[in-house]
């Protein structure tokens, strides 16, 4: 209770379900998931493939709407918002990091990072400045004008993280952020997430690797569209390889 008073609840999901109709069979990707995340948490969602963890992530990240249930993000009920308002939530309140980076090809790192600010309606000069600061904070201050094809996988993911934080969101959602990276680079990326977390960001990420989940302060395990376990843990400190 003490925690709740001090830290506001950012994510309050109640009985989320998502049903896909495939021909005449019903696929329950989410089957009544309730989840609360308070500010300052660093949550790993685990589960085997097909467990519904990615569907849950898309839902929490405002990319998808539930079939039923309610979802309040930062005090706002979003499960019934229009596409335009969902876009606004994705732009202002959260940052999203993907497994496959999802940077725009043939577009420089700084322009990629500027993208959310373009849709936030910021002027050109301010966009540049904030994108530059964000890239410096992820250690890519010297690669502003590199294109994704000129960057390594770890660097591309750091550009994506800079893009996720550039509009100063309250939360970051990451879907298998280390899935396309080797072990050493994965640790680097997790170290970066831990730095951001310590600086006050709330982070929720999906992974299927127990090693990667150890860096979180809480592990939620999803199986067959349901949460089967939810435990807090002392996070392992990720150390950047020398």
């Amino acid at each position, binding site marked *: 209770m003490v925690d709740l008073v001090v830290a506001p609840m950012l994510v309050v999901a109640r009985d989320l379900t998502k049903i896909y109709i495939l021909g005449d069979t019903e696929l329950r990707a989410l089957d009544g998931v309730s989840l609360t995340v308070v500010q300052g948490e660093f949550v790993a969602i685990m589960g085997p493939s097909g467990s519904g963890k990615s569907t849950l992530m898309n839902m929490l990240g405002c990319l998808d709407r539930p079939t039923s249930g309610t979802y309040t993000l930062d005090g706002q009920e979003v499960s019934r918002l229009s596409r335009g308002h969902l876009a606004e939530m994705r732009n202002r309140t959260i940052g*999203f990091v993907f497994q496959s980076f999802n940077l725009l*090809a*043939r577009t420089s790192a700084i322009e990629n990072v500027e993208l959310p600010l373009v849709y936030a309606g910021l002027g050109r000069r301010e966009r540049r400045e904030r994108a530059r600061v964000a890239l410096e904070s992820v250690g890519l201050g010297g690669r502003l004008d590199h294109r994704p094809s000129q960057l390594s996988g770890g660097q591309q993911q750091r550009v994506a993280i800079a893009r996720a934080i550039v509009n100063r969101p309250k939360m970051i959602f990451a879907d298998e952020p280390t899935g396309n990276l080797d072990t050493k680079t994965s640790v680097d990326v997790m170290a970066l997430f831990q730095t951001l977390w310590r600086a006050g960001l709330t982070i929720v990420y999906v992974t299927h690797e127990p090693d990667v989940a150890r860096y979180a302060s809480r592990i939620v395990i999803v199986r067959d569209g349901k949460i089967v376990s939810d435990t807090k843990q002392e996070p392992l400190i990720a150390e950047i390889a020398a």
Partner: protein
Amino acid sequence: MNLINVMPIAFTALMRNKTRSFLTALGVIIGVASVISMVAVGEGAKARVSGVFAAMGTNMLIILSGSTSTGGVSGGFGSMPTLTWEDLRAIRNQAPAVRWAAPAQTTKVTIAAEDQNWTTSITGTSPEFFDVRNWVIDRGSLFGDSDLQAATKVLVVGATVSDKLFGPGSDPIGRTVRIRAVPFLIVGLLQRKGQSPMGTDYDDAAFVPVETFQNQIQGGLQNYIAGIIVVSAISAEDTGRAQSEITSLLRDRHHLGPKDDDDFNIRNLTEMANAQQQGTQTLTALLAAIAVVSLVVGGIGIMNIMLVSVTERTREIGVRMAVGAKPWHVLAQFLAEAVTLSMIGGLIGIVLGSVIARVVAGRLGWTYSPRVDMILLSFGFSALVGVGFGLYPARKASRLDPIEALRYE
């Protein structure tokens, strides 16, 4: 993102694939270029036609005498003289829409100078004739009313006649030539007028006072005019009025009953010019229509490529949506790309079309007159083509589902 920075974003996106952007715009370039050049060529043709008719005369009507009708065989107009000198006087004085009227009696003669002779058409007329024909004297002077009354043997020649008799560019004023052994003094040289629509050389002609003509060259018919009357209406709009005034005047004077046919014939050159003008205009409209069709085809080309582009860039659209692009942002971006393509295509087309029109006009010796309204119109139309044919692909892009779009390979 707002509407001010959507254009630069679209431009940047297009510059990432220059070859394709150019090929896409090519349809619009060709469309606009053909609109501009076709219309300019049409305008040139029109200007030329009006120039030709202006050379024939100012707001001109020609009155021919009537036809004979003996035993059921009708002769052509002019086969029987019905117009009298009194008629001419009446037309001059009693038809308010008539500015000038002059008789014209023409035949072929051989004019002999010292060492050259030249066969040409000679016309007996009055000074008003030159006003009607809008023909100015280049050197010397016209004959006046006193020459008419005294039937003086003076001659006004066209430039070709002067060239043939005395050599090109020489001054014929004051020289004496002989027509049917009678000496004539050349008092005036007319300004060069060029060719008629049928290719006749206007400048191959000579003119004498009508009295002189009847005395020395071809006898007259006493009361009747053995030729035509040329008339100039007070303005181009009044040629119809002049025609009806002259018709009723002449019918009255010739005592024709309501059932009788006219015993004269009036040709309205302005109407002929207008008919010709309409012909050119129809042609211009036809050419412009073809050009517009090619512009529409260009627009379909844009739609085609934009649709391919939306499919190809599905993932990009997904990324943009994931970081906060609203559906209308995506719509605006793709629409702006289509409009930018078509407007740049339009601009290039305008330049290209103007160059083509200039070259064509130069080759044909026409004057090239750029039509600003057509340039603005085709530019606006090409922008409209961009909006029209860009809307469908842009809507398609804006309705993509972000998750599906991100998953697209």
